[in-house]
């Protein structure tokens, strides 16, 4: 009997499973926190602190849960694919660092804004600017990850007179700005546009029609719907031009699946826009989130079998079979539980608000 062969197959199955769950965790983050971040970008243009405060209060009960999907995605990456975790984050140091600073700005703004008197304005701006910088640099990091990065083995900290150190493990070997390309900057803008649209849809569904925030969010959403459509087209064309792995898949024998997928995406976008125009705000939000789900799934499928295109395949990056098996046994069951209690928390805080009611005595 060939046990080695069996173990390779088990590793392959389990690593693919965690690759799918990793995609799901990132998807929860961009779908849920994307709306919160977008509402924060909207707050950049708020005229007064009460409005910013009302927007913050509207998500007070669940912003932390939404944001924590990012941490879970990081944890899954570390737990199942530590070779990617340890090299990609090294590569993405600068964009991640700035996104983390932005997350700090937002998190403290949430807690301080309600208690502040003279410094309220400062924390309001922290919230709004943090909400802009976080998706921008997260988007930059995503675009940079799609481009892949150079690696080598041996000692990573190159400029020290270390004794001979050898390891077969490949680590990042580029420089501080390897991530910086026109495409990665563009994906930063793309992420801001996507978040802006989600935020607009969220605010329309969250505030009572006729309320001042609802009024402004309506126009904002219509504008960002168009911007988002344009951004999708630009991103697809650009990716087709510079990523051979994507182009090969999209124009391969299964081209009709991808074409059909685009049609479905357009249909969802159309439904979101028409529901928005008709004032069905929550339905519009759901269709809009559907677009996010479809595009994210398509991106994940395009990358297969890579986890970082051209750099790490799912197989190469995965933990040894033994660790993957333990991770699967003990953690998979928690995924539906996490979804349940997060859903419950969001459900408790459902309902529409007005600018005045929500910020009164928060």
């Amino acid at each position: 009997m060939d046990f080695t062969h069996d173990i390779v197959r088990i590793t392959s199955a389990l690593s693919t499973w965690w690759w799918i769950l990793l995609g799901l965790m990132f998807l929860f983050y961009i779908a849920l926190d994307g709306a919160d971040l977008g509402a924060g970008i909207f707050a950049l243009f708020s005229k007064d602190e009460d409005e910013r405060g009302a927007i913050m209060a509207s998500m007070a009960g669940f912003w932390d849960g939404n944001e924590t999907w990012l941490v879970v995605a990081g944890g899954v990456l570390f737990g199942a694919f530590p070779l990617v975790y340890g090299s990609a984050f090294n590569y993405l140091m600068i964009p991640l660092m700035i996104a983390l600073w932005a997350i700090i700005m937002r998190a403290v703004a949430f807690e301080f804004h309600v208690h502040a008197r003279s410094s309220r304005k400062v924390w309001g701006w922290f919230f709004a600017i943090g909400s802009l910088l976080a998706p921008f640099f997260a988007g930059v990091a995503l675009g940079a990850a799609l481009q892949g990065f150079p690696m080598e083995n041996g000692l990573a900290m190159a400029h020290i007179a270390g004794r001979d150190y050898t390891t077969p493990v490949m680590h990042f070997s580029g420089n501080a700005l390897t991530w910086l390309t026109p495409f990665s900057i563009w994906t930063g803008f793309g992420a801001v546009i996507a978040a802006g649209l989600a935020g607009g849809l969220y605010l329309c569904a969250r505030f009572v029609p006729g309320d001042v925030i609802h009024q402004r969010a309506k126009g904002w959403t219509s504008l960002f719907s168009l911007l988002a459509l344009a951004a999708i087209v630009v991103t697809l064309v650009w990716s087709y031009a510079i990523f051979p792995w994507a182009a090969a898949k999209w124009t391969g024998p299964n081209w009709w699946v991808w074409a059909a997928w685009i049609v479905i995406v357009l249909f969802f976008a159309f439904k979101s826009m028409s529901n928005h125009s008709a004032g069905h705000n929550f339905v519009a939000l759901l269709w809009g989130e559907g677009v996010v789900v479809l595009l994210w799934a398509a991106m994940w499928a395009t990358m297969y079998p890579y986890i970082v295109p051209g750099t790490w395949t799912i197989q190469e990056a995965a933990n040894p079979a033994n660790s993957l098996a333990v991770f699967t046994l003990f953690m998979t069951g928690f995924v539906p539980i996490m979804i349940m209690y997060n859903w419950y928390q969001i459900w408790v805080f459902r309902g529409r608000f007005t600018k005045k009611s929500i910020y009164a005595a928060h």
Partner: protein
Amino acid sequence: MIIENSLPVLLSRLDFAWITTMHILWTPLTIGMSWLLFFLEIAWLRTGDERWYKLNRFFEKIFIINFGAGVATGVTMEMAFGILYGPFSQAAGPFFGNILGFETITAFMYEAGFIGLMVFGWGKVSKGMHAFATFNVGLSSSLSAMWILVANSWMQTPNGVVLKDGLFQVENWWHAILNDNFIWGFPHMWVATVELSLFVMAGVSAWFILKNRNADLFTKMLKPTLLALLIVTPIQIFIGDSVGKDVADTQPTSLAAMEGHYHTYLPDGKPNTSWNLIAIPNANNDGNLFQISIPHVLSLLETHTWDGVVKGMDQFAPEDRPDVWVPFYSFRVMVAIGFFLFFVALWGNWLRLRGKLSAESLRKSPWFLRAVIFSAFLPYLAIWTGWWVREIGRQPWVVYGQMRTYQGVSHMSVAQEVIWFAGYIVFELLVWAGAWYFFARVIAKGVDGIAPSDQLFHHGEEGDAHAGGGHAQASFAKPMLKAER
């Protein structure tokens, strides 16, 4: 000079040391106080005594600011292993990565899934559900502490793994999880969170009594807190001693650094049994320039014999020795604080025995109150110094005895390291200053503005509802689905 003290490696150590030091400023209070808030809530629910409710809602305000600061500094931690210590994260991934994955899934997210209900759920969910949410925040944050201590203690005593193909592959999960250092290391940290939280709540209560604001209410708080501290503080000293013995067994270099113990034997060939009260290590890290020492104490402490041999730094190659300054003095500060806090707990309960723990007599001789207020800050320092002993004592290893720190550092330039350091100095200090400023604001505002609990569940117009509670009728899902016109 060891390679770990060369500028690029030292900077990467400082980068990580700074963000962890600033993160541990928040998490202990979250972990410990969530349980204390749960007890207050249960006390309110069982007795119907409105005062417990008031105290709960008051301390909850401090709790949530603290929680926000913990999240703000904590998200960075989750990414920082990969950013700053990529090769370490890769090599340790099969065990360490798994454990961090466990932590995010079973603790970090678990906590986030209930914190909103706990803080903003008053009046929106039933009393029972609210207490359940508080309980879950307590349990999840303690689980978080447990997993983080599993991961860190494994770096101190890497049991159950074998280094193969550049990766620490797990041979025995139980040995790796329940590693030598974890057995006492986790209780030491967890009890520290409870001790810190009790002293913070006692300190705030003492301040109110001293200022004669709601003095009776806060005396009611102070009494059980001091009683709990009478139990917790000696337990912590005992656990701390056990951690010390464990370090002596498993990390002799760390112990030698902690005690400034360089020479295993005296010039005459007898074992060096002296415990140093004060020491000034020399620049070569091979002896003390000056020391005040007491013979036999070190042997008694570490081997429980009069003349037992305790391995000194001279038993290890110069490149394998940690620095002495920080572990040596940090250790002494931590121990001194541990005993002082025990003394304060004794003092308070002695006053109580003599019937002097009333608001009036406490104010008459305010030195006890002042000591309690002062003691609210000390556990923070003790936790900091304890972690500095642990982390600097482990050097020059990132995984003790298996992987050198310089081998685990990411590929980055000194400029990158400096930018990280500078940026986080700004942001972490901002969090610190802001959080403590708003603590002060909340405390200055006091408890009088807190609405009685019966207003939570019976209120008038829905339009008056606000997010901070008092929003009993959910403005149900239906109007969200079909837009109102």
